[in-house]
């Protein structure tokens, strides 16, 4: 049985009671559908996370300089700022 409240907490996703009731029916139906995978034996199969074959793509660990205008563009998008910083509610 899926604990909708717990998953919604993990996902930081608020849900109305109506939505919770709907998801209580829909999610098991979808899981039922994906459970088809249990028909296949995969003990000796390697997982595929990506398909490019690329490995360890790195760049020099160096920050790029940004102009004040660029910084302003980003700050303008934030709902709340103070003294050129993004304002956040207390975390602790």
């Amino acid at each position, binding site marked *: 049985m899926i604990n*909708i409240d717990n*998953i919604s907490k993990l*996902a930081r*996703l608020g849900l109305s009671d109506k939505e919770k009731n709907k998801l209580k029916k829909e*999610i098991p139906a979808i899981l039922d*559908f994906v459970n*088809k995978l249990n028909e296949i034996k995969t003990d000796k199969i390697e997982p595929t996370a990506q398909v*490019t074959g690329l490995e360890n793509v790195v760049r020099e660990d160096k920050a790029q300089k940004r102009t004040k205008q*660029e910084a302003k563009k980003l700050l303008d998008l934030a709902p709340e700022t103070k003294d050129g910083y993004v304002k956040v509610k207390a975390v602790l």
Partner: protein
Amino acid sequence: MNKLTIKQAHHGLVKKEFSSVELTEAVLNRIKKQDKEIHAYLTVSEELALNQAKRIDKKIANKEKISTLSGIPVAVKDIISVEGVKCTAGSKILENYIASYDATVIKRLKKAGAVIVGKTNQDEFGMGASGENSGFGPTKNPFDLERVPGGSSSGSAAALASNQCIYALGSDTGGSVRQPSSFCGVIGLKPTYGRVSRYGLIAFASSLDQIGPITKTAEDAQIVFETIKGKDEMDSTSIDFEEENREEKLEVKNLKIGIPKEYFIKGIDPEVEKIVKKAVDQYKGKGAEIIEISLPHTEYALSVYYIIMPAEASANLSRYDSIKYGFSIKGENLLDSYFKTREQGFGDEVKRRIMIGTYVLSAGYYDAYYLKAQKVRTLIKDDFDKAFGKVDVLMTPTAPTPAFKLGEKIDDPVSMYLSDIYTVSANLAGIPAVSVPCGKIDGLPVGLQIIGKQFDDEKILQIAQIYENSFL
């Protein structure tokens, strides 16, 4: 003028039959007249477009050489960032978000002189197969306004099919370029994973997402692909693929076409099957060898997709936190702000997928779902590798049915998910696939899907072009 292909419009510009401003105005006027009905656009960037067009006209007047895309109006899916233009990804949570930079594909198009006329409607964050999951109302299919245009690149395909642009960009995570292209009777290419940079594409499921062109001809798709492809240091999964000199010109008589038998089983509209098989027969008539092959894990592809995709999406969408940008509701504390903002900002399908993704990644379920799906993904990829040892390309329907009615599947997620049954495998395996219009049922377009080996993007476009040139 707005009905021209890229190639035709380019010739018109070079021969001075019309100016880029005239061409752009023709497209903008068409949008003003028609888009109330279709609702393909979320934002029309008239000023940006006309400025870009004027710049190209100056170049032409100065007798400078222009590239094929110069001065030609393009519509861009609203999940791709264009600097200074609103970019919502079809979501209320980004309703007022203005992109602060250009996606790499946009940078490349702008360098080629493209004229960006607007941003197109879509299922929220790319999650949907009908366009009905847009936070801003659905797009209608130009062939029948009571039907869906497909999704998630709904507006891009519908705008092109109703001549409200000369070409468009979409993005494809499980079929979102190809399926709407099939429903709207246009060409749609999902490139090999990694050939087109994802920088500036709002992330949905990062191991599957690719940007692709939606065009009126395969030749046009090749022109756009050529311009946007290539390695980009801003996307570490992008690949520099040097095309080795293709020895001989592609000839149909040397072509081996595989027909995966698992794609022609129950659930397919018999009329779709007939039309697609007829298209394949036309290649046969020109000397191609048709070989029935098996992709034994086909029936598991959708299940794999509906684990991997929501898992990646739930992680990607955690960035919408009400703090850095986007829609924001102040709660009593930080956690409360997250919950309230996301509850009101996201639509039903997005919430459903975040919940599934979070569940399959949560402690105790990771191995049973996510790891299992990644392993079956390997088997699906192996199926294709084996198949391409025997044949050059695969041909299948793009979708099991033509466009369905608005509202028909919206309350049944699993039945909606089946719309992607023929398209998701190419994303899981990272291989290229193109949808080509190949006929109609009661006036509704049907698409033939041509799937190629990894990096064979150009080849499948060439094969698509043969269809257009010889069989239409």
